[in-house]
């Protein structure tokens, strides 16, 4: 049963040279018992509940980092969608709730809180409308609050009224944070088939089917997979798939042991382990680099979708063999601004928005951290969202859009966000109008795939 010295050194190399990390330990907290008709009382309730449950999250995650010698990068919280729990307040402006969440984040020292969210795939209640209308002010006025809106599911179809509205909300959010390159939009995701237990931001929330408190863990390691693929000597695509599977198996096992121990120490239920290759701006810690290691001259050229399909599937297979708790998004992320080789691919003209859209049909999420010209119309943004939602709806998968129409910037400009959010090159959108289509509103009916009962 002894572990071989070579295996020990392999693990150490993954951490020290290849950026293997626990990207996030995210505590989900139900706020369903915090409702109150008085919004001040409601804010007090959520502050008390969250700070009580999360007071030891950061110190426990740091203990785990020390015990196992694997870095835990972010500690986060997710909560029941605020549109549901704040609805009985009867207020039209929910900014004070976002401010309360931001205060919680500061006081328990977590990196982000997700759940300033609404689920409107079939229609909107008064609370949903209040939340959505509060997004621009809330995201520009807070630092650590993340927001998501689910506008489509395979079972319900696409709520095109919500899609149309989100175009305007994204524009307004960018405008209200224009001094920081529209950074408010980096904290806002529009979803199809949003998972209720995803630990990654900006889309994390604590779904209504979740327990009182849960721990979900996000493990990442594009750098490890990239090194494993590059170490192969003239491999076939089957060899590459095999190598990725083995690597993701190892990463997942390591994540599970840490996740279960964190949950145990905090008295919370262990939810899911989300193995997602989430790139960082660090050299080699890149999903585009993995695709290029497979033999593509530059990410985005013909063959990219096929290579990404292979990668995403092998990651899932390795992960699902390693743990029974694999869930959330689990696959490969393609956030442009956060991936150094993807940025380079955009800048040298090999990667376009259209190709990214095709790639999202075979990877785990969607059009992520993409900067577009500030002049892009709300209806064009809505139409980009609609396309992405259609891919999710028809393929029974999660898709998402996190676009930033950067005020005052145009194609070829570069926006610096810093930290994990990276550097975004402003990408071209199609200049023909989609306005009439978006203005029609209504709902795209649930597809035939929904009729499974």
């Amino acid at each position, binding site marked *: 049963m002894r572990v071989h*010295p070579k295996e020990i050194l392999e693990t150490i190399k993954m951490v020290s040279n290849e950026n293997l990390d626990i990207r996030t330990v995210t505590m989900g907290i139900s706020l369903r018992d915090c409702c109150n008709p008085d919004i001040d009382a409601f804010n007090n309730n959520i502050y008390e509940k969250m700070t009580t449950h999360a007071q030891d999250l950061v110190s426990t995650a740091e203990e785990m980092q020390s015990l*196992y010698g694997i870095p835990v990068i972010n500690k986060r919280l997710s909560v029941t969608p605020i549109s549901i729990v704040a609805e009985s307040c009867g207020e039209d402006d929910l900014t004070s709730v976002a401010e309360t969440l931001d205060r919680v984040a500061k006081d328990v020292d977590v990196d982000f809180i997700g759940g300033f969210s609404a689920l409107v795939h079939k229609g909107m209640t008064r609370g949903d409308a209040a939340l959505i209308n509060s997004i621009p002010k809330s995201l520009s006025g807070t630092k650590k609050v993340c927001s998501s809106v689910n506008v489509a599911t395979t079972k319900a179809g696409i709520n095109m009224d919500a899609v149309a509205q989100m175009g305007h909300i994204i524009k307004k959010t960018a405008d209200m944070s224009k001094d920081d390159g529209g950074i408010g939009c980096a904290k806002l995701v529009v979803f199809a088939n949003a998972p209720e237990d995803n630990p990654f931001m900006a889309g994390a929330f604590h779904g209504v089917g979740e327990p009182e408190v849960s721990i979900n863990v996000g493990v990442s390691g594009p750098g490890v997979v990239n090194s494993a693929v590059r170490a192969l000597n003239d491999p076939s695509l089957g060899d590459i798939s095999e190598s990725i599977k083995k690597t993701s198996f190892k990463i997942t096992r390591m994540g599970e042991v840490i996740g279960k121990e964190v949950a145990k120490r905090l008295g919370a239920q262990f939810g899911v382990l989300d193995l997602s290759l989430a790139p960082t701006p660090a050299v080699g810690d890149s999903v585009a680099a993995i695709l290029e290691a497979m033999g593509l001259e530059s990410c985005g050229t013909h063959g990219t979708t096929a290579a990404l399909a292979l990668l995403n599937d092998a990651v899932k297979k390795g992960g699902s063999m390693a743990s029974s708790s694999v869930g959330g998004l689990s696959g490969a992320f393609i956030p442009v601004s956060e991936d150094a080789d993807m940025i380079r691919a955009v800048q040298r003209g090999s990667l376009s928005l259209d190709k990214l859209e095709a790639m999202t049909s075979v990877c785990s999420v969607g059009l992520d951290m993409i900067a577009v010209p500030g002049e892009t119309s709300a209806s064009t943004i809505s139409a980009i969202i609609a396309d992405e939602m259609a891919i999710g709806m028809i393929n029974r998968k999660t898709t998402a859009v996190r676009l930033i129409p950067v005020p005052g910037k145009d194609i070829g400009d570069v926006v610096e966000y810093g930290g994990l959010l990276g550097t975004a090159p402003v990408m071209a959108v199609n200049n023909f109008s989609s306005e009439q289509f978006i203005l029609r509103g209504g709902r795209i009916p649930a597809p035939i795939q929904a009729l499974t009962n």
Partner: protein
Amino acid sequence: MVSNRFIITAIGVDKVGIVAGITQKMADYNVGIIDISQTIMEDMFTMIMLAGVEEDNFDLSSFQKAMSETGKMLDLDIRVQNEDTFRFMHRI
């Protein structure tokens, strides 16, 4: 149940007194050696030790700090990690 055994790795340039320096510090903290191996990998001296502690309230973080200071003195990169990290990753 978290294991009470740790893997200590020291990687760096070979010189006299490495093992003595490390084991002395381990003795100070009442940490026992279960197994030890040394090898030269990619021109680097690499020592891997399986170590065990008996106490339930072992102060891991101060031991890690002491080991990392020892590492600085000997010009080595020393890590102390719970053996579960490796056991779970490489064994089913």
